[in-house]
């Protein structure tokens, strides 16, 4: 049933095609996080791949920046209903991290872990095959702290809370373990095109 007197401001045809259900286009880059940006010193920064508690490989900032780099261009979608079109990112894929570490993915599930103690679960299938980056650059510039710098996860085909800011590592887990927002009612996968916002969405 329609809302009395509401006509709405429709997106143009291009935007309508690019917007997942319930989303609206923004020109800004809004910020969603649970607290303030942590202060991260690049000299102390490390990125660690783990299987459970066991480290598989670890890179300092200098080593990390020597890894093969990948660029991604496209639209991103936040669960708070904004979508931003045509964003540019650069970073390192999980595939390149695994290759550099000389290991195969030991399980099918991962938890992204951050310097602010945030974590979020992402299946291997959503990270591998070049579908995700550990991003260090946005729009050609180093990532700013409020947007997750020095490095954040970028999983552009899922709602943006999966793209953990201030990332410090990826941990392979035996099961799909809920992360911070997933424990607080958000969906385990978070596909914007299927509108998987909250845990009781399909």
């Amino acid at each position: 049933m329609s809302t009395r007197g509401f006509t709405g401001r429709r997106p143009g045809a291009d935007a309508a095609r690019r917007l997942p259900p319930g989303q609206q286009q923004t020109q800004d880059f809004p910020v969603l996080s649970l607290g303030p940006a942590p202060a991260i010193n690049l000299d102390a920064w490390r990125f660690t791949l783990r299987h459970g508690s066991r480290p598989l490989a670890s890179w300092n900032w200098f080593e990390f920046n020597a890894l093969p780099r990948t660029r991604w261009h496209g639209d991103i979608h936040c669960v708070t209903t904004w979508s931003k079109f045509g964003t540019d990112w650069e970073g390192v894929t999980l595939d390149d991290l695994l290759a550099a570490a000389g290991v195969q993915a030991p399980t099918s599930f991962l938890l992204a872990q951050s310097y602010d103690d945030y974590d979020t679960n992402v299946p291997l299938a959503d990270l591998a095959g070049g579908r995700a980056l550990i991003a260090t650059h946005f729009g050609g510039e180093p990532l700013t702290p409020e947007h997750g710098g020095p490095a954040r996860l970028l999983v552009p085909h899922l709602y943006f809370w999966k793209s953990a800011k201030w990332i410090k590592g990826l941990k392979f887990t035996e099961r799909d373990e809920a992360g911070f927002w997933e424990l607080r009612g958000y969906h385990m996968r978070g596909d914007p095109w299927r509108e998987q916002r909250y845990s009781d969405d399909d």
Partner: protein
Amino acid sequence: MSERDGNWRTAVIARIAALTPRMRSYFLHAPLAGHVAGQYLDVRLTAPDGYQARRSYSIASRPGAAELELAIALQDDGEVSAWFHEVAQPGDTIDVRGPLGGHFIWEPPHAAPVLLVAGGSGIVPLVSIARAWQAAPAAPMLLLHSARTPEALAFQPELAGIAAADPRFTYVAVSTRAGTGRRIDAAMLDKALGHWGHLPALCYLCGPTAFVEAVAQLLVARGVAHRAIRTERFG
């Protein structure tokens, strides 16, 4: 839209009250589960052709209150807020779902001092927290509200009343463009925290992104732990 309809429920706007020149309260009757102070609802409006717009609005009412209160600021050309301000009347129905949000929440009893800081309409979830506190006052609570003008300080009489009735609740309101001309800067925060005499164990910051980020960094610089600071950003 899809066949399934999430958990959307029909809410009736029971009454509307002016808070400030650009902010109004909308009191809803809605078949939703009870909320915790700090949570929000998703609101959805539908055009005759099926087009829908959706926004999130914090809940201002005290947990357990009979009516759910949303307090919505008018944004120039805002798709949803302008409908609320220019069209909505008591008796109108809207779709809502929630309550949502599991981090920016406060529940009594809470033994340690709590700091609340709001910029503009970011006061809304903090009003719910203040009201929940009033129903079960415990540890000291300090609420700082910054708005552009004195008239824009929504909920001021009520919040001042809570403070007048109980010395454990402190309320400091500042306006940036008129009157006192103060913004929440390091000096003002130091002064307010100094008068209060407590180090907050938990902080809730809500408002525009830049405001929230600036206040968070001021608190971190004063020695408040990152994990003691909870933020909600309105855009």
